[in-house]
């Protein structure tokens, strides 16, 4: 069975370490906040200028001046700090954020990522995504393994305009956890009940499959 959105978020959350500063992108990455292990402390960074992002506000707490990068109203955790956009991206571009989780349309065997534009169709802008992929060492891309029509999103070469070049090392799809190194995809884990053959079939770029591929557990 392919992972649900919640399971993707759960699996990503296991990559967190005590003391991490983490930037979670819009969409599935946002859900990761719900699955942070209770025995570790992390601080969430929102690139519009907030470190220590908390949960959604109650009606009483609602504040138009306190939003996240997805423009959703949020709260602050104890010990939060506020800063301007230049400082916020200094944190990102200066490599101070320990883990970045974001979505994508495509990734390829060289660690390229396309996530912001479908020419002639979707031109909303890259927001902070180009800064995030260029600035972070430790990035997890979350996406579906293939389109609804069965077209692979893990490619030999991205077909869409790039968000970043050679910067992605880890991808979690609904089918598998994959590492990118030396110009190849490497299968690390598979979703519960998903076979290696299914993953191979839906991975267009070269995929290295070890003898034993552990199954994720939830």
């Amino acid at each position: 069975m392919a992972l649900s959105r919640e399971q993707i978020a759960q699996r990503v959350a296991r990559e967190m370490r005590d003391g991490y500063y983490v930037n979670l992108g819009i969409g599935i990455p946002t859900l990761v906040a719900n699955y942070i292990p209770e025995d570790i402390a992390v601080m969430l960074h929102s690139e519009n200028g907030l470190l220590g992002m908390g949960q959604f506000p109650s009606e009483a707490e609602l504040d138009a001046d306190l939003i996240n990068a997805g423009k959703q109203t949020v709260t602050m955790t104890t010990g939060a700090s506020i800063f301007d956009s230049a400082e916020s991206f200094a944190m990102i571009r200066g490599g101070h954020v320990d883990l970045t989780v974001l979505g994508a349309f495509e990734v390829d065997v060289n660690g390229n990522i396309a996530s912001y534009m479908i020419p002639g169709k979707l031109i909303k802008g890259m927001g902070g995504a180009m800064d995030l992929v260029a600035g972070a060492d430790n990035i997890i891309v979350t996406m579906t393994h293939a389109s609804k029509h069965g077209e692979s999103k893990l490619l030999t070469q991205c077909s869409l305009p790039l968000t970043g070049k050679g910067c992605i090392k880890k991808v979690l799809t609904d089918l598998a956890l994959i590492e990118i190194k030396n110009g190849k995809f490497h299968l690390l884990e598979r979703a519960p009940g998903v076979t290696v053959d299914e993953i191979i079939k839906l991975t267009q770029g070269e995929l290295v499959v070890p003898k034993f591929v552990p199954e994720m557990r939830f």
Partner: protein
Amino acid sequence: MTGLNKVVQSYQDAMAGLVDGMTIISGGFGLCGIPENLIAEIKRKGTKSLTLVSNNCGVDDFGLGVLLPERQIKKIIASYVGENAEFERQMMSGELEVELTPQGTLAEKMRAGGAGIPAFYTATGVGTLVAAGKTERQFNDRDYILEQAITGDFAIIKAWKADRFGNLVYRKTARNFNPMAATAGKITVAEVEELVEPGALDPDEIHTPGIYVNRVIQGTFEKRIEQRTTRASGES
């Protein structure tokens, strides 16, 4: 002895001197921390052929989006413009020139403009459409592109409190692009929720020193919320 008193009494005075073809840098992120009434005044004036520099362009009927129907904007430099149907129409039809700029690069370009730095290198955008035509150079075996500063004829910003010297403080994430925008305008206009007496703001806690600010006006704000997300009360 009024030279350091930046307070103006009307929005007309606040935007006096703005003419067709100028470049305006605006603070704000989405609809948060935007200079609502200064934007409304630009709409009222009907100034045309503007180049706007702002992270976003508001929504159809609020924020910078209100300048679209009368085609007041010639060009926009922004990182994310996806919340606006009329915007998309004008962009697709070629009526509106759009220069998509990564958010961090945009913030840094404004800061550089205000700080007298004409250009800086960044890794953001290397190998993407953003790098087209830009100088590339390696430092410590990594590729970077050269990005140039942005300055504006006007900067329009929103702060929480100001004193008459133009010292500003912002509230929560309404800070966002406002402090950098404030430094990058030839004429910087701040609209604020509250005017306080000089000395009421702790010198250690001023976000934007008055040296960057030319005009201050007190306004009232709608502060529209773009994505109203709440949890059930009691839920945690």
